[in-house]
């Protein structure tokens, strides 16, 4: 077992059902994603695009354990996005709240806090938490909320 290159954990006031849907349903991800609303499902692959016809990245399901664990590829198409890697989400209920842990494996470049993938995951999780707790769709992009 390889050690993850990056780990992020947060706590969200929501049900496990809502958390699972928010991580797997492309229409829901599209509401809180910090960069784009163009997210679609193609078989077992979730496709992210900057705009129609401008692919950002693909995430193909490797293994889904409902409401427990999601394992997907992480295949960037943006300039300098690097080689395909792999992510695992762990979902866990703690009473009235959920603990969500992300592990990012097989990255081919060092992770720097506040930059690149580390910055992206922090923004994505912030949007996810706000969406699940308030119902508001806020995109925590660096250019400011839209």
């Amino acid at each position, binding site marked *: 077992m390889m050690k993850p290159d990056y780990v992020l954990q*947060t706590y969200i006031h929501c049900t496990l059902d809502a958390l699972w849907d928010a991580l797997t349903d492309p229409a829901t991800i599209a509401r809180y994603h910090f960069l784009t609303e163009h997210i679609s499902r193609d078989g077992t692959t979730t496709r992210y695009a900057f705009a129609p016809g401008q692919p950002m990245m693909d995430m193909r399901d490797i293994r889904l354990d409902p409401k427990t664990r999601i394992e997907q590829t992480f295949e960037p198409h943006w300039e300098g996005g690097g080689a395909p890697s*792999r992510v695992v989400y*762990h979902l866990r209920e*703690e*009473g009235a709240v959920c*603990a969500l842990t992300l*592990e990012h494996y097989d990255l081919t470049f060092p992770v720097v806090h506040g930059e690149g993938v580390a910055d992206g995951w922090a923004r994505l999780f*912030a949007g996810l938490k706000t969406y699940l707790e308030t119902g508001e769709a806020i995109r925590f992009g660096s250019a400011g909320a839209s």
Partner: protein
Amino acid sequence: MDAIFKAMADPARRNLLDALRAEDGQTLTALGGRLEMTRFGVMKHLAVLEEAGLITTLKRGRFKYHYLNPVPLQEALDRWIAPMARATTRGVLDLKAQLERRETLTLTTFIAAPPARIRGALRSSEAQAAFSFMADAVTREGAALHFFRGGAKMLTIEETRETETTLEARFTPRWADLPPSDLIHHFTAEGAHTKFTLVHHDATQDMADGWRRTLAGLKTYLETGASLKFRASPPAAPDPSEQETHP
């Protein structure tokens, strides 16, 4: 001690000891029959074992019975194996040292509120009491906030410096005998929301989860107004780090 290891080094002699472990107090004939060894061979090996003190014998009439003597083996174990067991203990102590090693923790989140509201919440004893996972009461004393749980003082955070983009404070644990350390909160406005980064110098690794819970509580409090303490409760599932099954 040398005699013991020499005696144990021969597989035929270890077989003899095994045979005595299975049935103590056997005669030369019985042992020879069990091990397909000549009578002379058995005698020679038993003599070495007896010299090393690993077996003792008892004569009754025409028969000589052989018994295991565990004492020298126990002494050898105490001398050679126990220090290795202590090495394992050393490993546990190293792990403890590792957990207590001081390091810099950096956590970032994004909050749908302007920096001034976040600063206000961090300075307010009422707000802190609402979102801090570790406290059920917070009191102010000058620039210091004292955090209490069940009447016991858990923590003191004293503001030391403020700049346009930061708020600095002294973090003094009261829940354990740990030295004070420094906190820096960084605020970066990004349109209507704020990038909030907490840097804790000379922290211990086990404080990281506390900060994740505190920041989760702060964000929830500012965005929803709800007082939600993200306290650890007995997990319903094993720790996520133990669930990773990918080869």
